[in-house]
């Protein structure tokens, strides 16, 4: 095989057995890798109804055929499992160099089964695969774990690990690699913790083979030139990072504020990318083979929040900032560092604090619930203390560790949780931007922006400008973006390459890497197949059309201030057409014809 290695690891953590299995070529072409391939194995080997933290759940690390090649920003791998935050099929993507290292070691994927009786970590160096004792690492932060494992194995090793949050099975614990990159959403770190697996360290000395090196190089040069020529992919993301979005969303009136009670935050600029670049940025940072460098290496010198690390990204700056009514960039950045060190998803963490603040302001919870802390919007010290308590597993932090849905539900008010399918929505107000609301509601892992980023046409005007306030055309737009992303996530490429590359470019790269003739149509069909397979998993897990919804606040309570004052989301105008275009019946179930057409 070209592009793929053709081999994957199956490791039973309970018995300690390690098997090397061949990847069937037809399966590789059908699902590519990453998210698609991982979902296939979850669907065929795991009962969708199981408790995500039961040892019968599996945890799959999967790279795609382009991952590890010298295609631009071809660094991504996915962690696939049944997610504990909301019980949907979880696939969480990350960059860094873990994915390429896995392939250089000789594997497309690792399937982890069972549960170790004691803390362990995996050491993979080419043919050598060892399950090692991790008793001394248990309790360590992500940087401590990474440093200790590199010292014990190889300084060049890539380490993907959980922090104390994953060990304690915080439901939004993530898996961090290279310290600053995260498989961030859906709580895949809690699954890793439930298996007593602290880390996977991998060092590979092999390569990814392509059929014609010169032809592949020519394709890569063309793709790289397109990204560099694109004013966003080539310069915008490097200069200001993703946090530059704060101001454009705010000026549009679509920046969710104080737990989505509003869509405009007058002090937004203080936590935006321009402020970050001026005050905290050390340098932009990229993943393996990256020509975009959206990452932010930052340093906070303010003694109260001092630290150094990675971030914040836009979603993080929003979650700890405007969503909590906070305009202190130093505090926001420090909260990000804590989440990175302990291994927690910043979106769900920040949104859960915002939800608690909303409950507190409305008198549903009091200082008796919050360990004596006045949890009011804008209270920087309170926000920081809540992040710390969650990270340390203390007091009210134990409730926050369950995410905002379970938190609000425990006080009889789940409507305060700004979630879709119990996963917190990211930083775009669906009342101001109709299409992203449909995407959140139909998301296969719940509220999520990276699986159908309609913000690109609806706000950023790329590749074309589409009016965010209209619903016409949005179902088709959402489907196109969802399918494109599903295929891209499975190929091994970074999502940001789509600021420059289209489906035809990605199909061309895949063809050149694999030696197969993968057309644009086939690429998009692979995406549709993966999306429908994820849907089938969720339906079997017990979800239904009733879960394709937005919080009532977004369809009934208009935005209060700013440019989008008075707007609500009109999901009801879009959802029936979405089902129809998807080839699903009125209950949101794929028809037999749809499944046949997709080879499912």
């Amino acid at each position, binding site marked *: 095989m070209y592009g793929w290695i053709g081999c994957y690891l199956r490791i039973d953590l309970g018995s300690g057995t390690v098997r090397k299995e061949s990847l069937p070529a037809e399966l590789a072409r059908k699902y590519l890798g990453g998210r698609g391939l991982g979902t296939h194995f979850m669907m065929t080997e795991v009962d969708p109804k199981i408790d995500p933290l039961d040892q019968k759940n599996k945890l799959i690390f999967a790279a795609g055929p382009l991952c590890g090649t010298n295609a631009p920003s071809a660094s991504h791998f996915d962690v696939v499992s049944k997610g504990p935050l909301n019980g949907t099929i979880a696939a969480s993507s990350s960059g860094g160099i873990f994915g390429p290292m896995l392939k250089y070691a000789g594997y497309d994927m690792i399937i982890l089964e069972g549960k170790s009786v004691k803390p362990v970590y995996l050491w993979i160096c080419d043919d050598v695969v060892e399950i090692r004792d991790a008793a001394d690492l248990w309790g360590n932060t992500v940087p401590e774990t990474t440093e200790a494992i590199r010292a014990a194995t190889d300084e060049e090793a890539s380490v993907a690990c959980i922090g104390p949050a994953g060990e304690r099975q915080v439901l939004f614990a993530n898996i961090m690699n290279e310290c600053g990159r995260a498989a961030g959403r859906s709580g895949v770190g809690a699954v890793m913790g439930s298996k007593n697996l602290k880390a996977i360290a991998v060092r590979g000395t092999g390569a990814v083979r392509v059929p014609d090196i010169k032809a592949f190089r020519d394709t890569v040069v063309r793709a790289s030139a397109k990204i560099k020529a694109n004013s966003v992919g080539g310069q915008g993301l490097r*200069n200001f990072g*993703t946090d530059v*979005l704060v*101001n454009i969303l705010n*000026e*549009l009136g679509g920046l969710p504020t104080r737990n989505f009670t509003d869509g405009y935050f007058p002090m937004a600029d203080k936590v935006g990318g321009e402020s970050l670049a001026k005050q905290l940025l050390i340098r932009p940072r990229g993943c393996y083979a990256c020509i975009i460098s959206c990452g932010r290496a930052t340093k906070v010198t303010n003694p109260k929040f001092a630290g150094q690390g990675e971030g914040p990204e836009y979603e993080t700056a929003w979650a700890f900032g405007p969503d909590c009514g906070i305009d202190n960039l130093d505090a926001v950045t420090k909260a990000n560092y804590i989440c990175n060190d302990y291994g927690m998803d910043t979106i769900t963490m920040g949104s859960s604090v915002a939800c608690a603040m909303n409950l507190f302001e409305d008198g549903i919870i009091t200082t008796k619930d919050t360990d004596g802390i006045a949890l009011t919007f804008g209270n920087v010290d309170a926000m920081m203390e809540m992040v710390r308590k969650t990270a340390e597993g203390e007091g009210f932090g134990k409730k926050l560790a369950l995410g905002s849905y379970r938190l609000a539900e425990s006080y009889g008010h789940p409507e305060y949780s700004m979630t879709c399918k119990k996963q917190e929505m990211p930083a775009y107000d669906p009342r101001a931007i109709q299409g992203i609301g449909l995407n959140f509601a139909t998301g296969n892992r719940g509220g999520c922006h990276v699986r159908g980023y309609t913000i690109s046409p609806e706000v*950023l*005007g790329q590749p074309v400008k589409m*009016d965010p306030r209209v619903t016409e055309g949005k179902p088709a737009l959402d489907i196109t973006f969802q399918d494109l992303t599903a295929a891209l996530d499975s190929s091994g490429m970074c999502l940001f390459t789509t600021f420059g590359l289209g489906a035809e470019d990605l199909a061309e790269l895949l063809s050149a890497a694999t030696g197969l003739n993968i057309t644009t149509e086939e690429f998009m069909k692979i995406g549709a197949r993966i999306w429908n397979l994820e849907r089938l998993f969720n339906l079997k897990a017990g979800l239904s059309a009733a879960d394709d919804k937005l919080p009532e606040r977004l369809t009934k309570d208009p935005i209060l201030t700013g*440019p989008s004052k008075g707007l609500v989301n009109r999901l009801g105008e879009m959802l029936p057409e979405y089902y129809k275009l998807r080839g699903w019946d009125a209950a949101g179930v794929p028809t037999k014809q749809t499944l046949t057409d997709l080879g499912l």
Partner: protein
Amino acid sequence: MKMKITVRAFADYREIIGKEMELLLPAEKTIGGLLADLGDRYPNLRREMFTPAGELKEFINIFINGRNIAFLKNMATPLSDGDIIALFPPVAGG
């Protein structure tokens, strides 16, 4: 009768014209007219925003009170007293 218009600049444009300015403009001014005036005052801004043929470059977004001019009357969109203009170079994120 003059109109008071606020212009906000973001990302790279801040380096050229500053963060925010208030202007007094004649009542019949359009957004196209305002940008032409700004281009005269800040040639670098014109170079960043427009092609040599005078077309707005791709992926640039201009908002009037939160609405992209692409969904109004583009450069012919008339301005009103109190309008807030936001100028964004190509940006992205996620």
